[in-house]
């Protein structure tokens, strides 16, 4: 965690300058990109959030707080999104962790092929895949029909349920969970586990004391990468949820596109971003706190 971690210790002033330049050069493209493509758009959104809707929709300059008041008074979609995202993240974790473990530790030579096969389904257009899910879960050829005929029950409806939405979310975001986990697990030295076992540690304590700490960065990255975009998702609930779940993403689309009320949408977005940053920061702080003490104890 310390500053000069790459081990290239500055040995002379000339060297130090070169090092500085190198660091600067390494960070320049990403930094510039963030500045232009992220900070500036966010500034625009922030300015818009205090404006009013122009007569024909869009944005008109003003300085009012109405949009925020309105956004706060409509917290329902946010809460529903939060529930969905938490469940979706847990779902991804349950499905993704054993898979990532297998890919990293047991797949051997087929590792890269299996990894590629993991993303290939996602090269098929999202909408087409979702239509396929509609057929799979639907009443005619699909699952609901099968359940009806096997168990002799009537009117089994899977589409439109939270389960269907959750399934869609887990399906759609799985690679974002598996890849970070794989990347950290793949690095893990199997001898560590052997050593732990040799030292008489049980399966659980080996997992807790060896596997988990190593996996943690991947787990944190994965869950953030999955949790956050789920908060803004709106097509999956619209299709697999048959529009019965109204999430944050749907609310933003209603504001920006249907009502053409950019300031109102902007205010909602700003609030969402703030809440999410606080959540992520808190999560990271919580996770890192444990790690730092361990680091210290090792030193």
């Amino acid at each position, binding site marked *: 965690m310390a500053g000069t971690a790459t081990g290239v210790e500055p040995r002379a002033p000339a060297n130090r300058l070169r090092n500085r330049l190198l660091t600067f050069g390494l960070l320049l493209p990403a930094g510039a990109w963030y500045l232009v493509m992220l900070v500036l758009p966010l500034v625009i959104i922030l300015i818009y959030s205090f404006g009013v809707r122009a007569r*024909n*929709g869009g944005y008109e300059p003003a300085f009012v707080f109405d949009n925020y008041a309105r956004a706060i008074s409509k917290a329902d979609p946010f809460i529903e999104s939060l529930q969905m995202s938490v469940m979706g993240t847990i779902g991804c974790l349950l499905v993704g962790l054993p898979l990532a473990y297998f890919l990293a530790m047991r797949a051997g030579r087929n590792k890269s092929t299996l990894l590629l096969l993991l993303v290939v389904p996602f090269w098929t257009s999202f909408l087409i895949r979702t239509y396929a899910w509609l057929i799979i879960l*639907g009443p005619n050829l699909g699952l609901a029909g099968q359940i009806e005929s096997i168990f002799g029950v009537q009117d089994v*409806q899977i589409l439109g349920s939270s389960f269907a939405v959750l399934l869609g979310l887990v399906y759609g975001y799985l690679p974002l969970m598996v890849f970070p986990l794989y990347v950290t697990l793949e690095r893990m030295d199997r001898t560590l586990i052997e050593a732990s076992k040799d030292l008489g540690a049980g399966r659980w304590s080996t997992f807790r004391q060896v596997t988990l700490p190593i996996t943690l960065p991947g787990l944190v990255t994965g869950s953030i990468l999955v949790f956050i975009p789920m908060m803004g998702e709106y097509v999956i609930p*619209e299709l697999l949820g048959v529009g019965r779940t109204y999430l944050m993403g749907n609310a933003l689309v*209603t504001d920006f*596109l249907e*009502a053409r009320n950019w300031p109102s949408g902007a205010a909602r977005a700003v609030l969402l971003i703030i809440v999410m940053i606080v959540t992520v920061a808190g999560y990271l702080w919580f996770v890192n706190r444990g790690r730092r003490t361990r680091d210290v104890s090792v030193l």
Partner: protein
Amino acid sequence: MTERDIKDLLTQGPVSRRGFLAAAGLTGLSATIAACTGTGGAASDAPTAAPTAAPTAVPTAAAASGAVESAAPTVAPAPSYAVEDELIMYNWAEYISDENIKKFKAEYGLKKFQYDVFDNNDVLMAKLQGGASGYDVASPTMNYLPAMIESGFLQKLDMSRIPNMELINPVFRKQWWDPTEEYAVPKDYGTTGILYRSTLLPSVPTSWKEFYDLIKGEASGKTIFVKSRDDVFIFPLKMLGYSLNSVDPNELEQARQILLEVAPHLYGLDSNQYGQTMADGTASMALGWTGELGQSLKDTKDKGYVVPTEGTAFWLDTWVILADAPHPEASYAWLNFIHRPEIQGEETNFNLYATPNDAAKAYVKPAILADPAIFPSEEALKNLEGQEDTSDSTQRNDIWEEFQSKVGG
């Protein structure tokens, strides 16, 4: 027939003097010209080869000889003005016939016909509001026109360059969305109504009131609404006898009560697959559009569509030229070309939406023309009300949000 052909020739011909002469020179031929749709391919080399500076006689002769040689029924009028070699269209996917694109390209010598797609009007509007540009022609629905005109997104049209505008049924002309007829050319129209499957219902709904009773009764849990704010509002407002464009707080409050009352009884809100949901029997009724009848519900025998007696909305898609269109000449050429009767007839045969161009009906397949779901009956037409832009009504938006979060219980 003959008379109409002559009229077509005159009206579809270009208006500049040179062009008019070209058309006039051909009127003698019109008697021999059949009314069927032709390929028009013979004319392809004539206009392309005609540079602006060419003497009058050249394109005329070329076009005429082309027509005579192949006996091609479509006398393609040579463009009277130079057309750019490219046209950039921003439209729904597969909304115009590929055949017509080919013909247009050939006739006007376009090198490139760029067809970009959007998935709904709101996206088009948002892109224009954000400042996107570079497209020539788009086809927004009419209720978006006033806002687009006022925001300066559209080009003022010189209607004398679109003579085929005269073929449009007066019902669709000079209405509130373009009162002075300066910005848009009607494209096609349709209605919002009730789709149903008669065998799954005790009785077939004929009005919004019966629809309402069924939702709360036998069709509870089996009714779908399209996910479109303005279309959903038609049902309570028309049932109560108000304008579907109402923004009156009192009227909207009453509409809200009805919407919240039916929300738990709905199967869902969905504009993508409601036809399929009805086809497989999950839903027995829908508040929706006619398109699905010819698609997912094509083989469903007991399907039906009704324009409720209290009336409903019609929508009209329109052709517009965007303010900063990089290829205005080609855009004008397109707007006039697409409303030639035989070309427009092919459009309707292709996209199955009613054409506002009466002359084109002669080229529409009889089965399509006779389908009341595509071409509403005279009686149904009387009860139609055009949708207006009510996106600025906060109350409507609030109700719409509240309704959406209550759907399905």
